[in-house]
């Protein structure tokens, strides 16, 4: 019996695994969670709806934009707030840039886990830095944005944003092709990823897995297509899926998703209409009594918020449907039979963020 974590350079946050080993082979694995639990769902109950938005930033801290978006959609459903068109386009632009930044980080760290050390990681982080600079232009923050609010977004895209994103969209696809050239036929990556950590399709569906982890197992389910929000149905893009559900498929799906995000970004920027960036919403929103559930396709999967209102200034209950938490459900089955070194790669391929797992 070997304990892995909670502090471990390769467990992507404070994930603890209790492994039963026979030599290097994993016979059983039990994830032990809660090291980053900070009672966010309890905090929601004593904060006003607007104050809840920055709390959501810290749930999946590598994709704050989609956290803000999911809770805003739920509050808008509950309080029947209509969002202006320009705000919807800005939301799509923010979400897709966020997806790129998050996937850059996820791919970089995964390749690092496979033993490529930091070179590809730093290349991906360099790309992510460009996106973080753009987010800083838009809302002043690099990681926790508090940008997408109930009713729209907190401020309009500033003039300096457009040349920056234009330049990024011109140059990034070429660099992405370059990275693809280096990584795709790399025999070490292939050897460490093919048939490793297989998640069979039926288990994936029963375990409630979502996002690239689900699509890697061959299920073509993406909320942006199946249940579009913020006008995603207007844009033309594909949803990549895998076949085997191994680490390679999840890696390839995320990689291809980056190309698809670039497509959506170009279309959204081109069609961005003039107008208001936010509806008139009071600072203290008091939605009528009732409940609402809204979800978005975050870089990690289906992120949903179930909000119950008692008519007051705070939610009575606000539950986060956290994809990273739920995606860990079949982890044991994915690890058994593999070596300890593979455990690191398999966890990396599920792209979990402990803030979302533990909340």
């Amino acid at each position, binding site marked *: 019996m070997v304990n892995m974590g909670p502090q471990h350079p390769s467990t992507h946050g404070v994930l603890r695994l209790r492994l039963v080993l026979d030599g290097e082979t994993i016979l059983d694995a039990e994830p032990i*969670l*809660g090291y980053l*639990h900070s*009672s966010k*769902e*309890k*905090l929601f*109950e*004593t*904060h*006003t709806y607007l*104050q809840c938005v920055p709390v959501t930033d810290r749930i999946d801290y590598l994709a704050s934009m989609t956290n803000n978006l999911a809770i805003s959609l739920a509050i808008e459903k509950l309080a029947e707030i209509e969002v202006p068109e320009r705000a919807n386009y800005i939301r799509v632009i923010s979400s897709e840039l966020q997806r790129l930044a998050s996937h850059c980080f996820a791919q970089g760290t995964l390749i690092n886990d496979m033993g490529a050390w930091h070179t590809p990681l730093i290349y991906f982080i360099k790309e992510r830095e460009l996106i973080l600079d753009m987010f800083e232009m838009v809302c002043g923050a690099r990681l926790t944005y508090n940008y997408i609010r109930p009713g729209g977004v907190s401020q309009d895209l500033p003039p300096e944003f457009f040349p920056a994103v234009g330049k990024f969209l011109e140059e990034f696809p070429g660099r992405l092709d370059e990275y693809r050239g280096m990584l795709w036929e790399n025999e070490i990556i292939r050897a460490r990823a093919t048939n490793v950590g297989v998640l069979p399709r039926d*288990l994936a*569906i*029963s*375990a*409630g*897995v979502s996002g690239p982890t689900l699509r890697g197992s061959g*299920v073509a*389910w993406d909320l942006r297509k*199946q*249940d*579009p929000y913020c006008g995603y149905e207007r844009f033309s893009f594909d949803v990549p899926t895998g076949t085997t559900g191994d680490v390679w498929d999840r890696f390839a799906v995320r990689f291809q998703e980056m190309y698809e995000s670039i497509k959506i970004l170009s279309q959204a920027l081109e069609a961005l209409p003039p107008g208001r960036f936010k509806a008139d919403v009071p600072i*203290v929103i*008091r939605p009528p009594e009732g409940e609402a*559930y809204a*979800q978005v396709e975050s870089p990690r999967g*289906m992120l*949903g918020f*179930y909000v*119950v209102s*008692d008519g*007051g*200034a*705070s939610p*009575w*209950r606000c*539950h986060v*449907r956290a994809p990273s*938490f*739920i995606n*860990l*459900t*079949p982890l044991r089955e994915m690890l058994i039979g593999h070596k300890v070194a593979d455990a690191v790669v398999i966890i990396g391929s599920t792209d979990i963020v402990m803030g979302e797992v*533990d909340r």
Partner: protein
Amino acid sequence: MTRALSGEELATAVSPEAVIAVEAGAVFVLPENVAEVCLALRDRQGFDYLLSVTAVDYLDYFDVVYHLLSLSKNESAVLKARLSGRDGLSLPSVVPVWKTADFQEREIYDLLGISFDGHPNLKRIMMWEGFPGHPLRKDFLEFDHRTFAGSGSEGVERG
């Protein structure tokens, strides 16, 4: 778009003896029937995917809320079960129906104190073994963050 089944539609999909109340967007079933109803919804109505299972503390009772999804039909539904009182609450686990309930039911047990009969591994998941109480309950007092009148469960006694 995902089509959300209304309470009425879901009530016809579930066997009539099991439904005790119908809301606009959800159906209430007796807690002891939850596992059978879910099995029927999965096998006969195509709800192959459990999006989320959670619970809400309403002071005099708790509601366990199931958000269901059919990947094949692109439909969603909400199922609820009401447990009266605050102590010794339990209902059947739906882990045999959808494996995803494993961690989510453990979270409800840990944070809200509701037990799930038949759960393969019912133990705390966020808090440590031996933690006193169930933190997400309304009577679990913590630092009062309220900055606004009317924010935060005004009817509940706070420390």
